[in-house]
């Protein structure tokens, strides 16, 4: 997807993002379910906004079963994330690692930590200061898709970069 089409898609998604944020307020388990911006999302039309980061840059990368290695798509997304973070130095980020439900709870916590760290290491290798990047693993506690099929599992095996701080935060 080229940048222009990403931007137009991002604009179309703005309304949806607002809804997500509202419903997140009711969630007493206080987890950012979709990894939507921890900082104020702003407008996706604004390239320095978390909404732009989330939708146009891409806030998440996916992993193969049991793996924490970054495939080409993941590296491309993370490269774009690194460039954005280098441009927007007011922001820090927490990278959330997740696993699908096929595994025991504690192993999946450790696996999510590996995935989050793989993303973090890549961002650092592209010049983002490690002090701006925290990691947390949710293991299999927070699937975004809930079917018990590979179609859902593939989206649940993810590392999501959640922004914090920034002028809009």
């Amino acid at each position, binding site marked *: 997807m080229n940048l222009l089409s990403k931007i137009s898609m991002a604009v179309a998604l703005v309304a949806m993002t607002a809804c997500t944020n509202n419903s997140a307020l009711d969630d*007493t388990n206080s987890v950012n379910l979709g990894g939507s911006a921890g900082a104020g999302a702003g407008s996706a039309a604004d390239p320095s906004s978390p909404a732009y980061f989330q939708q146009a840059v891409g806030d998440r990368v996916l992993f193969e079963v049991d793996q924490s290695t970054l495939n080409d798509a993941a590296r491309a997304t993370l490269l774009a994330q690194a460039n954005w973070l280098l441009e927007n130095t007011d922001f820090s980020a927490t990278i959330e690692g997740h696993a699908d439900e096929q595994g025991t709870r504690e192993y999946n916590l450790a696996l999510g*930590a590996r995935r989050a760290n793989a993303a973090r290491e890549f961002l650092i290798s592209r010049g983002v200061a490690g002090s701006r990047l925290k990691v947390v693993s949710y293991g299999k506690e927070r699937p975004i898709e*809930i079917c018990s099929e590979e179609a859902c599992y593939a989206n649940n095996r993810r590392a999501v970069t959640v922004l914090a701080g920034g002028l809009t935060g």
Partner: protein
Amino acid sequence: MMKFLVSLFLGLSLMVTAAHAQNQPLRIEITEGVIEPLPFAVPNFVPDSGAASELADDLARVVAADLSGTGLFREIPASAYISQVTGFDDPIKFADWKAINAQALVTGAVNVSGNRVTVRFRVWDVFSDKEIEPGMQFSGTRDGWRRMAHKVADAVYSRITGEGGYFDSRVVYVSESGPKNQRRKRLAIMDYDGHNVQYLTDSSAIVLAPRFSPTGDRVLYTSYESGFPRIHVLDVGQVQRRVLESAEGTMSFAPRFSPDGQTVVYSLSQGGNTDLYTMNIASGQAQRLTSTPSIETAPSYSPDGQQIVFESDRSGTPQLYVMSASGGEAKRISFGQGRYGTPVWSPRGDLIAFTKQNKGRFHIGVMRTDGSEERLLTASFLDEGPTWSPNGRVIMFTRETRGENGRSSLYTVDISGRNLRPVRTPDGGSDPAWSPLQK
């Protein structure tokens, strides 16, 4: 049909025999043999006053439910009784109980004095026309009546099987509600049979995998209260809690007590790598046990505190390993097909319970501590996280159903693989941990 049943029974490796002939002591030998639950009767206990009457019935029902729930005993319903027990000290009409084939008879009496309840009981070997050891009594407050019933049932179970009981025990677990992608979790504690549920935390932060201290007065668990997984220790009586020390930028989880209750073994994740550590609870001093680039988690001490069994993917897939409690070289013990996790050393020290994932199914299983004699006890879409009953006879675990409406609940199974039963909880439940027998 008969032939099928017989061969099915012989196929199981652990069996129960109700070995009982005239003039032989009443005894269930929990060994190999044919399964025939022992028929017993528990007439409602004899109340000493009108105030005790409802309690007298309720106590007998809980004793009966405990015994029947083991799968080793079969209750004869009251509708089959020929004679009633109307006085605790009246002579037993053995012929009437023999006629309905009640091999064991439990009689009891209840005294209520203010808020104080006293239960006396006797266990009779019907076909030998005699009492099995002298009667006993338990006293307590009225709101603790279920515990008294469990203590009676533990005594009956012990006398007939020769093994320790497990009914007067509690389970700490994670109560779950809400859909899969917004699940709310809070710590709860209950009696082993699902009664008397109390909540120990609210659902404002994810909580995972609680574990009892060896004396049952404290609980270790993992909470996301800080935004990151950290180990908390909670005093059950006072519901006071504190966070164990952990360095910024790390995650800690999978805590378990050492058998002396002084030390916690746990996983610490730093820079994406997860290793095992111990920490002295009083001093906060930590010691690293493993140092490998692989995942090391789900540790469990042997009952003598000398060894730790844990899960590691150092071979490429998660497998079980045993090492000294002070760390050092580990020996792999799981070699079957599939992935192994969540090993838990039995309180008797002879077996290790585990979760196994193979060909898209999950199993709870047991193996000897050297990895031999692996037996799978369950199979489903997702079974995990075994915990042992205090006497090492029964395993409780989490079963999650598949799909969008997937729900977690608690089950028990005997270590023979028989007697799979749901444990009823008000909401969903996961990550059970069984307490020791209460004092």
